């Protein structure tokens, strides 16, 4: 049986619907990451599960038991707040031991568990330090230890690494995944950072406007985005309207080959940058190089199609040496393996979705 079951959960703030009939199941020991832009309702999701937000409709069940009417402090879930919310008047030990004190644990038991958890998060012997003098990364570790100490059946993390700098974030994400694996903790985390979500989660849930847009393993979501919105949210910009028939899609960029078995008809097509090949001038679509961005081992090249007016730009990925100069004219061809015909009917133009993401 699933540890957490949300069925048809709806939350409204006045006229705005923050969660719109959300269904979600999390199995024991699973790490699930909810991914979405700000305002997509992901923090509200956590607050509903914790009991900090009353749903307008639907049902939250933990271990199969309906949680409506169960107050926050009796739900036995852990929540790590976005800005940690460490108690300023208590030292590290006082913060970490808080949950045990609430459960009436004996003093030596508290001391033992706190020491154990501080070791685990990499802050051995920090118990007597004041929280105000901790760095951002240390505060994050203390908040994590505080949430873990009572051994909650479900641990929820709200933007756990949001305020940390990039290198620290990348290191911590790996540590966290290892830690949760060893402890067997069931985790529901929310983040707006796809890298974080993919590195941490067994399963990713993409949210948009209070609804679940896609759910699947990181690989599934990455390889087969369920919609233009998900594709653009993951950073893919080569999204274009198409009419698919057989193994070809007709777009403003010309005819693009698609994998066998793709859905037919009026669709939206995603071309991953790796699927854009630069070929000799005269072959394929004629383009001008608009900009080049160095991204580490590769160069992202933005191409402007010369032909049809108003056609969207194309992003290509090149090795360091073969990247053409800005202003150069090139031919462009597409590789079928890197083209995805997105499921679902085409709803308006892909540009409308982009506007929604930007907003």
């Amino acid at each position: 049986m699933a540890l957490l079951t949300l069925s048809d959960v709806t939350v409204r703030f006045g006229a705005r619907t923050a969660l719109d009939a959300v269904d979600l199941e999390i199995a024991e020991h699973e790490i699930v990451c909810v991914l979405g832009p700000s305002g997509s309702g992901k923090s509200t999701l956590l607050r509903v599960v914790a009991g900090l937000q009353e749903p307008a409709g639907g049902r939250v069940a933990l271990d199969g038991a309906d949680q409506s009417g169960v107050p926050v402090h009796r739900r036995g879930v852990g929540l790590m707040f976005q800005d940690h919310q460490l108690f300023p008047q208590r030292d590290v030990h006082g913060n970490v031991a808080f949950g045990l004190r609430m459960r009436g644990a004996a003093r030596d038991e508290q001391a033992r568990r706190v020491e154990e958890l501080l070791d685990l998060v990499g802050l051995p012997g920090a118990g007597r330090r004041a929280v105000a003098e901790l760095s951002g990364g240390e505060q994050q570790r203390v908040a994590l230890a505080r949430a873990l100490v009572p051994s909650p059946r479900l641990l929820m993390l709200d933007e756990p690494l949001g305020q940390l700098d990039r290198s620290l974030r990348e290191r911590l994400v790996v540590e966290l995944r290892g830690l949760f694996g060893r402890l067997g903790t069931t985790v529901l985390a929310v983040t707006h950072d796809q890298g974080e979500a993919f590195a941490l989660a067994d399963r990713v849930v993409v949210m948009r406007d209070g609804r679940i847009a896609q759910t699947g393993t990181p690989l599934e979501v990455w390889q087969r985005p369920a919609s233009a919105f998900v594709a653009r949210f993951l950073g893919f910009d080569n999204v274009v309207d198409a009419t698919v028939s057989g193994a070809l899609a007709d777009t403003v960029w010309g005819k693009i080959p698609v994998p066998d078995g793709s859905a037919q008809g009026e669709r939206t097509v995603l071309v991953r940058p790796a699927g854009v090949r630069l070929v000799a001038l005269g072959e394929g679509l004629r383009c001008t190089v608009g900009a080049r961005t160095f991204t580490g081992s590769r160069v992202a090249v933005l191409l402007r199609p010369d032909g049809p007016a108003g056609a969207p730009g194309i992003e290509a990925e090149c090795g360091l040496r073969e990247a053409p100069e800005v202003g150069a004219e090139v031919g462009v061809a597409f590789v079928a393996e890197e083209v995805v015909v997105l499921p679902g009917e085409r709803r308006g133009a892909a540009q409308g979705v982009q506007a929604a993401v930007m907003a």
Partner: protein
Amino acid sequence: MALPVAFFAVFFAYPVAAIVGRGLKTDGGWQFGRIGDVLTRPDILGVLRFTTWQALASTALTLLIALPGAYVFARFDFPGKQLLRAVVTVPFVLPTVVVGTAFLALLGRGGLLDDLWGVRLDTSVWAILLAHVFFNYAVVVRTVGGLWSQLDPRQEEAARVLGAGRLAAWWRVTLPALGPAVAAAALMVFLFTFTSFGVVQILGGPGFSTLEVEIYRQTAQLLDLPTAAVLTLVQFAAVGAILAVHAWTVRKRETALRLVDPALTARRPRGAGQWALLGGVLGTVLLLILVPLGVLVERSLGGPGGYGFGFYRALGSVESSGGTFLVPPLEAVWNSLRYALVATVIALVVGGLAAAALTRRAGRLVRGFDALLMLPLGVSAVTVGFGFLITLDEPPLDLRASWILVPLAQALVGVPFVVRTMLPVLRAVDGRLREAAAVLGASPLRAWREVDLPLVRRASLVAAGFAFAVSLGEFGATVFIARPDRPTLPVAVARLLGRPGELNYGQAMALSTVLMVVCAVSLLALERIRTDRSGEF
């Protein structure tokens, strides 16, 4: 919210309304014509003019003298700064009677200046103005300096980089940010000096009379209640207007200023100019605040036969007072402490509940209630005291013979301080801390105890200290309702000063010194607790 409202209705609105009613209502009809009659009398017009004029002059003088002080306290680091900050705050919690007495000892007949150069200022307006500056110096230093120390100096630096000169940067960036705080401080000073009673009563002599003194004279000496009622209404209207403007400036002050830790903005003075400024401010504090207090102590120790504790010893017996008291004056110390303690408890309960109610709710009604809580600061204490006498003398509230009357009146003045101190702290408690506690297993009550209480405890101690000091020094209302055999310290001082003879004068100085020490000790204890300056006083 119900208890504070009831408290204010019964012990504030009702007595004041009763007094006004008694003055303006005869033969079953309201005599509003009297308002016009009274307000056209030349002597009353003179009082109104003088009250306004001296309040304006006092405010201007206080700003002039205290603003450099605010700057020095905000931006300079120097040894003894903490202590000095506490010292300049002492006058603010000193009873007006003590302030009056101290300046009498400095400027009055037989005072220090009289002895040295034969200069007497006690019946001049200068004595009143100086005493008012002495009294309100801390209001400006705390309100303006508190904000100034938290203004990010980099704002000014940004202006400098963009091409503004040193003066232009201050004028265009710092001053506008400080503006609301300066206005708020100025209004508080204006309010306190506009309603000044004890200081003017003692230093003014017969020539100078503020509204409050005139209300006292009309009520207690001339028994002309209608005139007193009209004057009370006038003062009520003026105070209401001042408080409305003050509330507006406070709201403006709360808007969108980026504040930083004060410890980051202060540094050691650099260059001759800054050292001179620091020296000037220290000199001012010495002359204006320490000298009057020092002279008070000196006079209390002096006597015909050289220095000694003669006056203090005399306080312990009934006989030496020459029939001024029914009990030894020293008893007043215990009366005062007892009354002030009870008043503090009442003020904490009423003010704490009011502050909690104000934190939880919002809206026009609540803002009105917020303003109402400030009114006792400015409405004639004399009227309240006299109102207690005539309204609380019949069942079910026959309290005239009860000792509780005095603490009740004193608590009334303490409540605004409690509310102003607790409100910012209560508002600052992050609701998500409570949520964090709940998620970790704390029930709502437990969460309040674990999260709110530790944060509020310090603020309540500070509030209690203020309420205690203010209750201890309350004079205008207490002078009416304290029973002759149970005088409080300020009442005893005033009574001693009203009698001729060196012994009475010396005893008044001694008793004032005792009162000053009690107030100063409670304030210095407070300073140790108080770490943040987020309160509005």
